[in-house]
């Protein structure tokens, strides 16, 4: 597929057990008490990650900060810039995007929803043109899949699981945020053999 040559989706679905029980959403949860980490449509391996790595946000929710904490914890090497413009993104080989919209976060960054949308579109174009590997990270579970959050998520990868399945992009789902540790460690800070 020409369009997204090397797109990966790593969805950090922070689905607390209450959310798992929730009947509100049509989405069927893949993770359970027994299966805490579920990967569909293929596999994630460290060789998919090419340095340098950038972490940015689309939507400016607090999730990007949680992702930063996770990456710090696993000892990954990366640049953290939640409001990186497309020209900046072009300098990287791998970009992790924490998606999730927050009017507070946008306000604090002094960015309007329109500006953020334009930035997201520019980033999409850049990653396509430069064949940058994209990892989409969604934290926060269904509580964060409101109308505003979905607008942004849709732009990047549509509804995560359906899109991933349709396009055969690997997707990893996690029961809680702590489960992300091992997955990220394997990808970004593999222990030397």
């Amino acid at each position, binding site marked *: 597929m020409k369009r997204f040559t090397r797109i990966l989706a790593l969805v950090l679905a922070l689905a607390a057990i209450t959310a798992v029980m929730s009947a509100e959403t049509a989405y069927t949860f893949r993770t359970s008490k027994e299966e805490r980490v579920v990967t569909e449509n293929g596999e994630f391996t460290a060789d998919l990650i090419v340095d340098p790595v950038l972490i940015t946000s689309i939507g400016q929710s*607090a999730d990007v*900060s*949680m992702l930063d904490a996770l990456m710090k914890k696993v000892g990954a090497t990366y640049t953290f810039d939640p409001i990186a413009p497309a020209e900046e993104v072009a300098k990287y080989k791998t970009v992790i995007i924490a998606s999730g919209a927050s009017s*507070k*976060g946008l*306000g604090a960054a002094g960015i309007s929803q329109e500006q953020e949308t334009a930035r997201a579109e520019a980033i999409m174009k850049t990653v396509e043109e430069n064949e940058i590997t994209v990892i989409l990270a969604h934290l926060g579970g269904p509580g964060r899949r409101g109308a505003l959050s979905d607008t942004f998520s849709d732009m990047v990868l549509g509804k995560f699981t359906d899109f991933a399945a349709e396009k055969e992009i690997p997707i990893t789902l996690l*029961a*809680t945020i*702590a489960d992300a540790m091992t997955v990220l460690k394997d990808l970004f800070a593999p222990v030397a053999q």
Partner: protein
Amino acid sequence: MNAKQTTRNVLVLLIALVLAFLAGQDFRDMQQPDKIYAENPALTRVAKLSEYNPNLKGTAGDTDIYVFDSGVPGGVALVYGGTHANETAAVMNAITYVENVSVTQGKLFVMPQANLSAFSATLPLRAQMGHMTFTLADGSVRTVRMGTRLANPVHQWPDPNYRLNSSGRVLEHGEIAEIRNLNRNHPGMEDGYLVEMVCYGIRKLVETENVDVLYDGHEASPEFRAVNFLIAHQRAMDLGSAAILNANLDAMMEGDMDGYPFKLDLSGATSWGLSHRALGDNTQAMATLFESLNPVMGFCHEKVTEALVKDGISPNYVHITDLGLLGSGELTDAGSPIELRAGYHMEMSRHLIGALGELNPEKTLTISGLPTFNDLVANGFEGILKPVK
């Protein structure tokens, strides 16, 4: 006036006096300070807020601050509850610190009753009980007052019809009573309304003692979007993220695979007068606030009995949850007991303190002695609180 009339009038007055006397006992009880166990050997001293704003001396706002100073340079934290005196889990968390904590590096300040005046009254017309009691193993009973959201009008009244307060928030129309709300008047005034002076005292405490991280404990209604959220000032986002992550990793280590339902959010730019905004903007401290789930804070709970406050079991809210009407704050038959709520506060604040040193090693604040979350939930406050003489 004939003798018969006089007798009748006197009798009516006497009956009224007896009723007033009996009812007055309840009001009087609420004026009695809570007995807080202060025999923790790690306790350095009990300070008064008036040390930081002398205008509070002799007022109903001069609350106690428990100081744990290791004498070893390191980080400094302020953990407090009772900003809203009816948000009991945050008060119980602070009391748990006072009774159990010990500090081997850095300095810790604990303030269980930030708005002390608010502990001396309950909300009018809510039929709310004024005390929580815990019967301990030795048969003794610990009593903790459960007050209200605002300072007692006996101590601060009348509310001005218009007030542009120190935070830039305008208190007018339906918001005039908020001049008695501690969490609307930060950073406060040295010489102003009582609550403004309390706010100023806290600000000065934070500044004078070089507090690195402050934790303001609250409770929220099931309807509130930010239940179990840590609200962090922009300078505290890294700290908050690390703390939430560490809390969840810790839970996993202890075999609690569901982890904690903690989420992070940024302090709103227009949250004027709230601690996470106003103290974050006006002091060097990284300001945070956490909300646990207490059905008593909502609009649909049953009568506010001691059982409702302690067990957090509310059939009304279970029904509302089952109808799928709650976006957050779902309640099951298991309720939201005080030990669980206070335990969340304890884990959240404990890990903020831990993250402080993790992110800035020279700011390490090492604490120990607190019960574990599982201990607290399993044994209840009946098994955790210490008897006071």
